[in-house]
């Protein structure tokens, strides 16, 4: 190994020192609260991954939109609509797969609405997103008829052969449900698409300097429509995850702020899918902390204090990191050709 390489590796670890330190501390904290028992540790990690899945999907939706210059504050509403639509289709058709596709389709439609208002009609992006959030609450409450169930139950765990028998890691990583696997595959894929392909370069160009992108022949409006609709599809997958994979039914307001937490995850992950995954795991951990507190019998009489942890973490992250994280430059500005 040459001296240069050694220095590069050293630099890498120095740059990531806060991540490493946090991880080490969290690992120790987890083991301690789990009383150093394998079963407890595993269940904390499983719960972390489960909570992180909708967050990283929501964050990928957000970063896809924002990388091309459109703020998507309506992730919450897109997820809720898809959770509802996916559940309704799955429960009436009897096919979970059809439900998932319906969820993705509805998410894309909601993305189309956001793009239509904010890109096509050049309305305010934050108001457009808020409109989606409010509309989603109204529509899902009006059209939801109680008592529906999934005929075949929610999605089942798929064990990946011998890999699933590895202690701890097998349970955490290789015994999951379909959308979780899909999410784990989407993270590196989206990273590759965004930073190594022509489409990715164009997306980022449109988000940073739309008029320059336009002069070299990229359609700013077209890219924004495409990305916001694709982002909607990813949010739709997150919605389908909630109703078809995690809970197995639809509940009013079941997204419970996850769409907004996902935005904080996106910022914390610096508009990068891999970074967002790290951030989502951290937030997932904050939600999974409930399990740990139960082992130790902490605050079990005051569950409200555990309930606020993910939201407080979100606020702290926003307050602590927003100033330092740089969003795409053209964000929030409607684009029109001069």
């Amino acid at each position: 190994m040459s001296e240069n390489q050694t220095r590069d590796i050293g630099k890498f670890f120095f740059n990531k020192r806060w991540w490493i330190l946090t991880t080490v501390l969290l690992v120790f904290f987890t083991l301690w609260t789990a009383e150093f028992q394998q079963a407890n540790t595993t269940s904390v990690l499983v719960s972390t991954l489960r909570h992180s899945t909708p967050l990283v999907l929501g964050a990928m939706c957000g970063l896809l939109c924002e990388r091309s210059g459109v703020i998507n504050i309506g992730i919450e509403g897109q997820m809720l609509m898809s959770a509802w639509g996916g559940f309704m289709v799955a429960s009436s058709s009897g096919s979970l797969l059809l439900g998932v596709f319906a969820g993705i389709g509805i998410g894309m439609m909601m993305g189309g609405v956001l793009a239509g208002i904010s890109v096509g009609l050049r309305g305010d992006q934050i108001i457009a997103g808020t409109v989606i959030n409010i509309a989603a609450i109204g529509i899902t409450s009006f059209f939801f008829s109680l008592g529906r169930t999934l005929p075949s139950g929610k999605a089942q765990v798929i064990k990946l052969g011998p890999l699933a028998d590895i202690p701890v890691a097998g349970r955490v990583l290789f015994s999951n449900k379909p959308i979780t696997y899909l999410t784990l595959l989407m993270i590196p894929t989206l990273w590759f698409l965004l930073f190594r392909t022509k489409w990715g370069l164009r997306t980022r160009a449109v988000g940073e300097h739309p008029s320059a992108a336009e002069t070299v022949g990229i359609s700013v409006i077209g890219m924004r429509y495409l990305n916001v609709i694709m982002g909607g599809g990813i949010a739709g997958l997150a919605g389908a995850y909630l109703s078809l994979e995690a809970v197995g039914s639809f509940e009013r307001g079941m997204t419970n702020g996850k769409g907004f937490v996902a935005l904080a995850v996106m910022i914390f992950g610096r508009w990068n899918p891999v970074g967002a995954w790290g951030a989502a795991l951290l937030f997932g951990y904050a939600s999974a902390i409930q399990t740990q507190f139960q082992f130790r019998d902490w605050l079990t009489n005051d569950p409200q204090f555990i309930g606020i942890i993910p939201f407080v973490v979100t606020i702290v992250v926003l307050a602590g990191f927003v100033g330092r994280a740089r969003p795409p430059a053209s964000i929030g500005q409607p684009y029109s050709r001069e």
Partner: protein
Amino acid sequence: MPILAVALAIATGAIIIALSGSSPVDAYKALIEGSLSDSKSIGRTLEKATPLVMGGLAVAFAFKAGLFNIGGQGQLVFGALIAGAVGYGITGLPWIIHTPLALLAGAIAGAMWGAIPGILKATRGAHEVITTIMLNFVALNMTDWLASKVWREEGVIVRTPHIESSAEIPRWGELPAGFFLAVVIAFLCWYLLRSTTFGFEIKSVGLNPNAASYAGISVKKIIIMTMAISGLLAALGGAIETQGVVGRYEPGFNAGLGFEGITIALLARTHPLAVIPAAILIGAMEAGGSMMQFKADVSPEITDIIQALILIFVATPIIVRWFLSQKEANELSVSTTWGS
């Protein structure tokens, strides 16, 4: 133009009612009967409209400084809980002191809660849309805890004890006095924004923070003050609801009002006085919702959809403009300060 947006939304709502298999004419008839037909139903409409006026004012006021406060619900429940606590916890005061004291306590709690996102925005650049939503969830959990552990009434139901009669806001016949208090506050907001230096500073920051800063206005101070006042207004709505209608705080108190405030503020084009008719409109929908379910068998959630439709039509003036073929539309913008 807002009237056209409402008309479009009601027409679309009629189509949805028809599609779900009921008669839109019967449904809207029942809606009007339940909200505007006699003094009792008008009283109920005004009662529903009261926190909506305050919620609408809270959003509209923050809008003037370019801030989007969607944390009205959290501020409202804090105001409602604290007013309830002061309303039952302090005894032996004459009503002339007790009622305003409880209102004031609720308002101050809301102002403090509302100031948090203002401080985070001014000092740390955290966007208020996310922080206010997150604080909603925190507020719901915290008020839940306070009502179930600290100020809980003896018994199975989680709620605070009923307030003393000296803290109750009276009704004049069928008409709730709280509504008229809300109207007075709307006029105060209008005056403050129109005719005072502070109001001018708020509007300057909303129009162009850089120019305002260059002109010697402390943008940070204005952001924090505006968010505090916005929180105060929303919380006062909660306090009036506790003291004038519900009589106590219980978890799940008035869920969802924060979002209705947004619809009302946008429908009123953020004008403090226009908030009053906008709130009466939405209040009438809520007051008549149960009659609509009873007489026309239409789920009251249809009013949520109509509200969402109003919001869509108001927020995209271009859609309405298309119908009117009008050239200029006064567009609202809050996205300029994202992440900076």
